[in-house]
């Protein structure tokens, strides 16, 4: 070990130094979720651009409905609780999956998916009501920005729901193999990240938008 370290230390970037340390590259169970973590962070940067657009256009209502007239805090409170609880149950599913417990893993995953579906259903109801009142995305720059930001989050939740269903089928068919656990871990990182973005949405869009 010491001779090996000394050799690498002396080569200064020579052919023997891989730049990966003495242990070599990390295992796939570290590298894959780390890469996915980078994707999630870049996704948050995408959302930051949408938030910046929304903040810029929030007062550009073109004489149409404003934030105070459109948003219903009670609906938002239910949405927030549904998504927060689904984040919690997603964590419980991961704890069960780590112990290779089929029943609890599938159970918590389906609860996670159902809570996500409740969130999505309320969001679609809100969108449908707004469009029905003539407050669709084409009404004003503010509403375009609103539907882009909140709709993009909703699209992520939809993708997450499909992913949860896929993972339930994969766990059922293939069991708790290493690569299945890895995918499940990426799913949980994705799902928790969606809840973090929702915290920003309910604060900036809904709560600050409905201040008296």
């Amino acid at each position, binding site marked *: 070990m010491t001779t090996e370290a000394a050799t690498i230390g002396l080569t200064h970037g020579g052919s023997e130094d891989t730049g990966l340390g003495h242990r070599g590259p990390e295992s796939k169970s570290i590298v894959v979720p780390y890469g996915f973590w980078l994707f999630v*962070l870049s996704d948050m940067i995408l959302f930051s651009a949408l938030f910046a657009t929304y903040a810029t256009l929030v007062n550009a209502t073109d004489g149409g409905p404003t934030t105070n007239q459109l948003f219903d805090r009670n609906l938002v409170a239910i949405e927030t609780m549904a998504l927060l609880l689904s984040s*919690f149950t997603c964590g419980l599913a991961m704890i069960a999956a780590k112990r290779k417990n089929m029943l609890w893993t599938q159970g918590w995953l389906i609860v996670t998916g159902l809570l996500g579906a409740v969130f999505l259903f309320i969001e679609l109801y809100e969108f449908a009501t707004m469009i029905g009142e003539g407050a669709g995305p084409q009404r004003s720059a503010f509403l375009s920005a609103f539907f882009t930001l909140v709709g993009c989050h909703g699209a992520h939740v939809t993708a997450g729901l499909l992913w949860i269903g896929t993972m339930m089928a994969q766990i059922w068919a293939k069991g708790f193999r290493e690569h299945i656990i890895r995918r499940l871990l990426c799913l949980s990182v994705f799902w928790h990240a969606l*809840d973090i973005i929702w915290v920003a949405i309910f604060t900036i869009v809904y709560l*600050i938008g409905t201040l008296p």
Partner: protein
Amino acid sequence: MTDNEDNLLDVAPGIPHSNIVSETGAYVIGLALAVILTGVSFWVASTSTLWGPGVAVGLVVLAIAQMGVHLVFFLHITSGPDNTNNVLALAFGVLIVFLVMIGTIWIMSHMDANMAPDPVMMNLQMQH
């Protein structure tokens, strides 16, 4: 894999390393803190006892606090040496997010203030 081995290796985001009671406990604490922060946010937004102009700032602070709770208790981002890569990536992400958001809002509000109001907009403002 033993706990000892766990401590030596790097950890991917989302992986806690301990027994089932403390793992579940961490999620319960995280959920409780998140519910409290959400509740306070909704209360702050609807009460009239607080100083009006400070409410929006307070809400943003509460939101950032809740994001921190999610990162620590749900995504298990820690300050430990096994988490250095995750934290560095997160720090870079947060830097870009703040640059994009604060930079845009700052520049666009100045452009808005410097823009000469056109007659149509003036009329709209008169009507209010």
